[in-house]
């Protein structure tokens, strides 16, 4: 963060986990004030738990609303998942069953968030390591229907689509084609790790590695479908030097520019 503040790298925007700004103050608040003066900001949450069956944390939502007022981010997002039940928070992005019941609930929650924020909210597809027997639709049907019914935007994580396509055996390109094109506001890329000690391949979304070649290829396919959508590379574990991050970002930028030229 120090190097970002002193060297002002040529990047289009910054994204911060909303919850890291939930305290009353501190060094990150001060740093983001500086970043915000020069760059657009995206607030990306991990703790809203949109899909909790019992309660919704109104205090969490109120804190997010206050942050949005203070920092005026260009984008605000969280995940299509749940994390809390019975007053206990598991602090993870947990898989929802793709049932009509879960869909109805999360549609209502997203509408509630958009009403509270008074603006469009983005939801992101997550990586998952299991699915449920009683699913009534595919993941891509669930995601597309959530967006259509709630009117929210999509933060499309291309790495998560790829990870799930391997973990659950589906066609990643078919998933992308099912997404509502006009709703894709942002793309995430990231690195995964491959678990080798199990009977079947299992990819774990780790944000600790360079983007995989297969994911770069899928990203190119996503740009064909959705156009030059603002793209962020998530790398928040085992973070390398800034140069390595900027090189990864540069590769995405080159692909994006190719599409801008193509469209022009």
């Amino acid at each position, binding site marked *: 963060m120090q190097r970002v503040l002193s060297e002002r790298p040529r990047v289009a925007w910054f994204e911060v986990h909303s919850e890291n700004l939930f305290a009353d103050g501190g060094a990150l608040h001060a740093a983001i004030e500086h970043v915000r003066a020069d760059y657009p900001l995206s607030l990306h949450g991990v*703790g809203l738990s949109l899909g909790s069956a019992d309660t919704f944390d109104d205090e969490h939502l109120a804190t997010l609303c206050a942050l949005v007022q203070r920092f005026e981010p260009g984008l605000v997002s969280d995940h299509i998942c749940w994390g809390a039940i019975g007053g206990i*928070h*598991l*602090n*993870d992005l947990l898989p929802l069953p793709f049932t009509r019941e879960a869909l109805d609930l999360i549609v209502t929650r997203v509408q509630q968030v958009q009403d509270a924020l008074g603006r469009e909210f983005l939801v992101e597809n997550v990586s998952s390591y299991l699915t449920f027997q009683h699913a009534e639709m595919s993941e891509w049907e669930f995601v597309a229907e959530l967006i259509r019914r709630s009117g929210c935007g999509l933060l499309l994580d291309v790495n998560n689509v790829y990870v799930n396509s391997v973990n*659950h055996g589906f066609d990643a390109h078919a998933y992308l084609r099912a997404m509502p094109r006009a709703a894709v506001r942002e793309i995430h890329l990231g690195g995964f790790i491959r678990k080798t000690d199990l009977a079947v391949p299992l990819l774990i979304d780790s944000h600790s590695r360079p983007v995989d070649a297969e994911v770069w290829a899928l990203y190119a396919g996503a740009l064909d479908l959705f156009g030059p959508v603002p793209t962020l590379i998530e790398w928040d574990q085992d973070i390398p030097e800034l140069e390595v991050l900027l090189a990864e970002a540069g590769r995405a930028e080159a692909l994006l520019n190719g599409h801008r030229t193509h469209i022009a």
Partner: protein
Amino acid sequence: MVTAPTLLELQRGFANAVLDRGSDLAQWVVGAGLAPAARLQVYGNAIASTQIETLRATYPAVQALVGEAFFEAAATRYRLHHPSTRGNLQAFGGAFAAFLATMPEAAALAYLPDVAQLEWLRQQSALAAEASPLAPATLDDTTSLSWRLHPSVRLLGSTHPVLTIWRYATAPEGERLQLDGRGEQVVLWRDGGEVAMTVLDAASFACIAALIDTRDLEAAYAAARAIDGAFDLAVCLRSLLKHQLIAAG
């Protein structure tokens, strides 16, 4: 479960499974080449890892004092007894000091809970609200002025030399610990991006505690004088001002 679980039943079953509380959710998980329980375990491991790493980041001195293996065992037990309740992990771990005080295996390290409490207060100080310090010149007329101590100021009174132990635990290898056995009364505050700490005499500690509680200079002076008849309020206030710890409001 004979019929498919409702979302509420599924989430309760999932939480029970990953918190080792017993659950029959696995029968509704698609195995696809793996035991359904193993798939749930991937989540169980990830959740435990996230929460234990959070405690590790908050309590580095405790970990240095007890070692990695003991810390992991304590953190594992803590997260099952005091589950996280918020989506914001900065709020997780506030009862770790009290929990360590109840751990029989830690009883020999009587100072450990206070070291943990000091680390929790360091985090609270680091994340406290910002406030504009008063310029010294404006303090000539304290009677009409609206002021308070900076929100990052925290106090910890200990019967153990808690700050000395913390500095020893977080110092590079090879530091020697010299203890005279006396307790330490510590004040913490945010100085730039860092948390600063120093040991106070008992009267100054009582003065600052009263200032935080009451914002009343007379009450603070009385509290300090009850401990030390020679306590000098002006010296204490000048020191607070110098460190920019008296704020408007």
